[in-house]
């Protein structure tokens, strides 16, 4: 079983305690009512979907319950690093 480092618990925990939560650093619209359809489309549906290094959100749902960000390689499934929500992109 793969172990994932939770930046809040400060330890490596089994992957089945975690849930994937999509791409990280997708900023919410500051002024939603001013968004055009194209901007909504980009915000809601358009994702980077890279082959390789990917910044993504994870949640330690069966643990401390917190969302955090991780850098994972989508080819090898290896986690490069994890960091707390709100910290700059790594």
């Amino acid at each position, binding site marked *: *079983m793969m172990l994932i480092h939770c930046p*809040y*618990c*400060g330890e490596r*925990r*089994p992957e*089945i*305690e975690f849930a994937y939560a999509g791409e990280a650093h997708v900023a919410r619209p500051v002024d939603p009512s001013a968004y055009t359809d194209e901007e909504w489309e980009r915000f809601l549906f358009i994702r980077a979907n890279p082959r390789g290094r990917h910044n993504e959100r994870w949640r330690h749902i*069966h*643990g*401390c*319950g*917190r969302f955090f960000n991780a850098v994972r390689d989508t080819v090898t499934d290896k986690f490069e690093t994890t960091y707390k929500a709100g910290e700059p992109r790594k």
Partner: protein
Amino acid sequence: MSDLLLRNEPDCAGFAGEGAGVAIRLAEPMARYSLRARDAQVLEDLIGLAVPRAIGATLGDMACLGPDGWLLCASVGTVLPSGSDLPVAITDVSERAVRLLVEGPRAGEVLMAGCPIDLDRFAVGRATRTVFETVEIVVWRLRDDAFAVEVWRSFAPWLRLALVHAAG
């Protein structure tokens, strides 16, 4: 929790297998509170109990499960203030979960049949939310050879059966 209500405990008959090295039984009913607060100090001032700060730490009846979440498992009748005017969330979850006590020299081994955490290196007095197979549990190490397992009520009969099977 009202004394007028009939208690309906899940079907969790005690298990103490001959030579199994482990005993499993349902604990007495408890008062449980889920406590949430960004600032632990606010919580401490409100309820008048010391609050553990490190995730996984316990202090008396209280376990710190997350950076802003705690679980209090106290004797029946414990009542906490609601803190309605403060940025805290204190919720009575007494009937949400039941507690299975897993005791004996093989307690950790039996739990590790379905729990992916290394309980051999899980210090006494530590508590954490985790999973058993796919069921969410809270493991609390009471003593070297005793674990308390908090599990949501409807999962309890299955968890008890799985533990008994693991105990062989």
